[in-house]
């Protein structure tokens, strides 16, 4: 085919065509790679990008058709360029989804959580060099373009929208016990599936909440902006607490040990913002749930196996407890607008009424829809009985069962909890050789991380083999 670059618009078309070809090559190379867990999500995402590139290529072809007006020709070239830029941006969204960033074996257990809980959305996992766990929800409108190619239309129809992207920290911060936090992120995906009834909160607390904010601001009523901020903050906190509740029911103590520990290093204050309730509040609720049940509680079982009293700050001493409301308001006013400070202060005071409702709803949802996914105190007892001793002599929790012929693979939540029990209470008893010098036991932790990673890999191997 002759190359026609005899006019500015034709040169522009060539530039876009060049971009599209390079993007096609990049997408093609990405498709050829192996993804962790052989998970289909990254390939589905790449198919969407291919569909966009096909659409852009069709725009370019149409721009070159005889009889096309100059205006239309320019419009089509520009639109093709925009699609190329979008495709490039969407490739960036999946950076870190490959085998170099994510260990192969951790994806299947995480995906199984999604499946057990009935989250059927198309999903991919990726790691980034950031201390962050996140669930992003990507709507189909991003791929709603004029005159889509047949390939884009077909792929969009095959996706279970919204597309979910789970982000975990990569490389040095990819720490196995912390993966309990992914259960929290899955909770975000389930928030809208629950049939919420917050009427008890509305009946007992809502009016009082408004009044307290007005009183604190010395206003007769709140302006529309403040009300909107209150509504948004309330919605965010409610969803965060719901996600915490899911993580609690899926992983038990593991989320109590991981989430506040992770948060304490990220926040220099109370962790309280328009998007998140105070870390101390979230931790208190988790601790109360672990202590619930008397002699059959998680806390009692923890003590039975580790001889340690579970305390609220057991693994998160740097979490700051917010002071009383008046002082909290003063503190927040040093960094925020006073309206925002007043809303956050009083919303914080209202949370005890909300948390019970939230946890009850989540528990009910799981008991109705995915009861087998609940990590119970009895299971915790069995896990520590079976695996804690062997872990101390370097036998990872790969499988459980009384005899060679009756072994079953260990559940992911069990591996996390056995790992935390060793990490927090038995690290000195772990009979492994660690490199010297061992900074506060960090090298010993590295061995533990290796054992837990191996447990995940080999329990999955047994599961796949049996399947």
């Amino acid at each position, binding site marked *: 085919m002759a190359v026609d670059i005899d006019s500015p618009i034709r040169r522009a078309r060539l530039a876009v065509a060049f971009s599209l070809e390079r993007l096609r090559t990049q997408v093609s190379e990405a498709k050829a790679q*192996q993804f962790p867990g*052989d998970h289909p999500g990254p390939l589905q995402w790449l198919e969407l990008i291919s569909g966009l590139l096909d659409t852009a290529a069709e725009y370019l072809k149409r721009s070159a058709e005889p009889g096309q007006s100059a205006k239309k020709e320019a419009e089509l070239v520009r639109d093709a360029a925009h699609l190329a830029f979008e495709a490039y941006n969407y490739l960036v969204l999946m950076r870190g989804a490959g*085998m170099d960033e994510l*260990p*192969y*074996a951790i994806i299947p257990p995480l995906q199984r959580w999604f499946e057990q809980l009935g989250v059927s959305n198309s999903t991919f996992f990726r790691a980034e060099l950031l201390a962050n766990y996140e669930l992003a929800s990507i709507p189909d409108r991003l791929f709603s373009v004029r005159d889509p190619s047949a390939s884009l239309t077909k792929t969009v129809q095959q996706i279970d929208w919204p597309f979910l992207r789970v982000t975990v920290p990569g490389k040095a911060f990819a720490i196995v016990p912390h993966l309990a936090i992914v259960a929290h992120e899955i909770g975000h995906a389930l928030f809208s599936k629950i049939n919420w009834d917050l009427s008890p909160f509305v009946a007992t607390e809502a009016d009082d909440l408004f009044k307290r904010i007005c009183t604190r601001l010395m206003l007769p009523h709140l302006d529309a902006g403040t009300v909107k901020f209150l509504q948004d903050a309330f919605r965010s906190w409610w969803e965060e607490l719901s996600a915490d509740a899911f993580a609690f029911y899926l992983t038990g103590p593991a989320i109590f040990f991981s989430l506040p520990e992770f948060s304490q290093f990220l926040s220099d204050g109370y962790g309280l913002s328009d998007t998140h309730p105070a870390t101390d509040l979230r931790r208190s609720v988790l601790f109360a749930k672990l202590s619930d049940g008397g002699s059959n509680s998680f806390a009692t079982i923890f003590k039975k196996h580790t001889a340690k009293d579970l305390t609220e700050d057991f693994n998160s001493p740097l979490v700051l407890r917010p002071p009383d409301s008046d002082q909290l308001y003063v503190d927040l006013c040093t960094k925020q607008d006073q309206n925002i400070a007043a809303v956050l202060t009083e919303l914080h005071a209202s949370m005890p009424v909300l948390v019970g409702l939230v946890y009850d709803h989540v528990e009910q949802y799981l008991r109705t829809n995915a009861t087998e996914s609940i990590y119970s105190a009895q299971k915790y007892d069995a896990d520590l009985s079976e695996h804690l*001793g*062997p872990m101390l*002599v*370097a*036998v*990872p929790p*790969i*499988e459980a069962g009384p*005899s*060679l*012929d009756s*072994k079953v*693979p260990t559940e992911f939540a069990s591996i996390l909890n056995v790992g935390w029990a060793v990490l927090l209470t038995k690290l000195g008893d772990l*009979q*492994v*050789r660690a490199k010297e010098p061992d900074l506060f036991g960090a090298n010993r932790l590295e*061995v533990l991380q*290796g*054992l837990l*990673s*191996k447990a995940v*890999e*080999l*329990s999955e*191997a*047994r599961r*796949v*083999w049996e399947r």
Partner: protein
Amino acid sequence: MAVLNGSQIRERFNDPLDQRLVVSPILEPPEQLRDDQASVDVRLGFQFALLTPSLIGAVDEFDQDPPLSLASLYTKRFVPFGRRIVIHPHQFILAATLEYLRLPSDLVAYVMGRSTWGRLGLVVATAVGIQPSFAGTLTLELRNLGEAPLSLYPGQVIAQLFFHTVKDAKTGEGIGQYSGAVDLLPKQMSPAATHENLKKLKKAVEKI
């Protein structure tokens, strides 16, 4: 030093923790551990490492200061169930066993390639002895001495472990420290004291 037979191996799986032998997971017990034999079959795992030596002159622990990182010589590959890695004639690769092994302080083990593979030219393991109190996955050194490329699939039975008792071994809680080795790449060529002495000797010779 007696070799454990199949039923004795099975019994050692149920011993108290400090004396327990662990080979996990054994995916097909009737095939991998038979009472009429004296070994446990082990499978290819998922981790492989391919030597990529073209960027260095020679593997020489005294050639650089700090010493050459042996791990840098390899490219690691994770091959899941259902996929394969091909070992070509005269190629050398490292492969982890699928099974995690933990030896108590009174047992040593020897890893031997299966004869079927041997007849195809595949040599398994040069470091065949496994010390008491070893814990981890085994690293197999595979070399294809045959004429044909061989496809290797994770899960294939690749070798067998023989267990011997150690005479007068100390047993009991707190005996030994387990390595917990789950990475197949080598760490160092010589132990620290040996390395230092050899380095001094090399320098002394160079001054002559």
